[in-house]
């Protein structure tokens, strides 16, 4: 489990304290999300939470814990295993001005409601000429690294990257998780909110009040001048760790945390790329047709004359996620892979 405490705009170097007291003092990613939902429920009468086992049980990962007791079954609603109907229910409710937040237990199950998301939720504002909005949030647990096997470990942002109308949000730390979830709920656009399972237990000092982290803005999680690493979700703590190691070798690495994957913050990405001229793009999903391709293409095209060398991509291999842990380790990118990519880029 990774432990991060980056804050939105500027990175605060972590003071190393004994792990035990860390846990007492700091808020986990899960708790930060739970707190955001609680604050949003209090603010928005029109909001409800819906999904499988999210009421009394508090969700498979505990993100909705306590909401049922506080807000009741009308607003915190368990469903059967009917993913299409869950998203359909949110879409319909959103059409009449409600603000639903769905939990799809594992991102892998988004295939069940892909039509609802892509053909209904993402298009309704456009195809009905702005007469409807779809202010719903689809929260879901994604990513690998825990022996979950091929149907509980996928990084799914690539499934939705080519779909205009959907917003894809992907926090890397508890502070952003809260701020981005609140911004997603406030937003009148439909948001696919990705929660990487390996980050759930990461901890940071999270402000207790209602704050939002603007959608569509990346964060420079660490400043640097030699190499830029663009990353999101779990790759951010890996990139930060790799950057730390690189600095010991005299390579100054800037880490851009994308935070919103669609529409993404091209300004921040491109200006960092232009500044360093050496870029690594790091993603957990397979390389072909993934977010890394989009970023590499954009950077290569728009920073053509500033680049000292080709963009270097670090990704998952082009395979499903195998169950066996040693095999999964082969498939998923790790900190060493990011370090290796930084080393290549630094040589240009």
């Amino acid at each position: 489990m990774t432990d991060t405490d980056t804050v939105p705009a500027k990175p605060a170097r972590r003071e190393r304290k004994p792990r035990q007291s860390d846990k007492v003092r700091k808020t986990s990613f899960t708790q930060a999300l739970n707190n955001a939902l609680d604050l949003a429920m209090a603010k928005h009468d029109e909001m409800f939470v819906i999904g499988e086992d999210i009421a009394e049980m508090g969700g498979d990962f505990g993100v909705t814990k306590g909401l049922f007791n506080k807000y009741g079954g009308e607003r915190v609603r368990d469903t059967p295993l009917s993913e299409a109907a869950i998203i359909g229910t949110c879409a319909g409710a959103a059409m009449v001005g409600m603000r639903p937040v769905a939990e799809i237990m594992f991102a892998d199950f988004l295939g069940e409601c892909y039509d609802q998301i892509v053909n209904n939720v993402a298009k309704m504002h456009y195809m009905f000429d702005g007469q409807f909005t779809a202010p719903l949030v689809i929260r879901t647990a994604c990513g690998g690294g825990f022996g979950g096997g091929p149907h509980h470990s996928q990084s799914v942002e690539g499934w939705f990257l080519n779909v205009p109308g959907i917003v894809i949000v992907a926090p890397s730390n508890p502070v952003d998780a809260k701020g981005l979830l609140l911004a997603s709920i406030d937003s009148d656009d439909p948001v696919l909110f990705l929660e990487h399972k390996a980050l759930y237990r990461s901890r940071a000092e999270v402000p207790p009040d209602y704050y939002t982290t603007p959608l569509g803005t990346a964060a420079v999680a660490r400043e640097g001048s030699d190499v830029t690493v663009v990353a999101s979700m779990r790759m951010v703590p890996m990139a930060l760790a790799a950057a730390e190691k690189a600095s010991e070798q005299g390579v100054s690495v800037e880490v851009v945390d994308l935070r919103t994957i669609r529409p993404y913050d091209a300004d921040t990405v491109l200006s960092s790329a232009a500044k360093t001229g050496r870029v690594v793009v790091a993603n957990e999903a397979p390389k072909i047709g993934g977010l890394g391709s989009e970023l590499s293409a954009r950077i290569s095209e728009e920073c053509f004359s500033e680049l000292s060398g080709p963009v270097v991509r670090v990704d998952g291999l082009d395979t499903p996620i195998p169950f066996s842990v040693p095999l999964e380790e082969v498939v998923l990118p790790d900190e060493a892979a990011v370090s290796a990519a930084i080393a290549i880029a630094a040589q240009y």
Partner: protein
Amino acid sequence: MDTPTLIGLYRDMWLIRAFEQGLEREFEKGNVPGMLHTGLGQEATQAALAHHLKASDTFFPDHRCHGINALAQHRYGGDGERIMAELFGKATGVCSGKGGSLHSADPNVGNFGDNAVEGSYMATVLGVALAAKIRSQPNVACAIIGDGTVGRGEFHESLNMAAIWDLPVLYACVNNGYAISMPVGEGHASADIVDMVKGYGIPTRQLDGNHVIEAAEEVGEAVEHIRSGKGPYFLEFKTWRWQGIFAGEFRPEAEVKYWREDHDPIMLATEALAERGVSQSELYTVEQEVKELIEEWISFAMESPSPDPAKATADVYVGWEVATR
């Protein structure tokens, strides 16, 4: 049903028929882009539904629902011509031409738009109904689905969820006997769709969808049941569409004759009205008035400008602009 009400339904049916026939004519002339599915032959079902749905209710029309869309727009918006204009892809259409035949919507008149992925709104309708329930509004959320659409898995997810949550959903299944070329009895475990609904504990009725009196009365009962908070209701309208499939007519001759000649919903209503002593000429006047109205709508649509090209990139997101070329 009193005679003025029946005359009103007669008028509504003629409005639908004239709308579709005018549209068909213009489509053949090349004035209407895209694809065209008409509701010809199914006027009684649509008129019966439209009769009981208020502007504060919601309906999800299917691909043959230009008629109900036009009726609602005419009745509650006073601008039925905007449905016609939408089908012509014009700036004056209800969606500025962005939706077309398969995605005409106007929430102000209760029309929440088709989803051309047939049947996906069996899921969407749940949310509209849930919102009404949470807000204690006595609204009906109606999903109009074809017999073929019943093949979709969302049929089960929707009925089940409407049942467990007692949602105010009216399922209006228009069983016209075929899904394109697939006869209902070959595509489904039962040719009677209601059979597949029984297990959900939802009240169901199968009715003659071409008898506008029966249809309107049954819809009235269903709507009353739903409005009074008793949960979902399923109606199966047995009817028939005039439009064949691409390669022309493939249905048995006797079947065609029965539905087109002996069981035409407008003819059946004409007979009922004649029995009540309403004169031929009064009915003829109704028909002519409606036909003239539709021609006005067609002219309106024809003369309307195309949408502003800026519309092409508008409203993808609320919070962001998208790039133009």
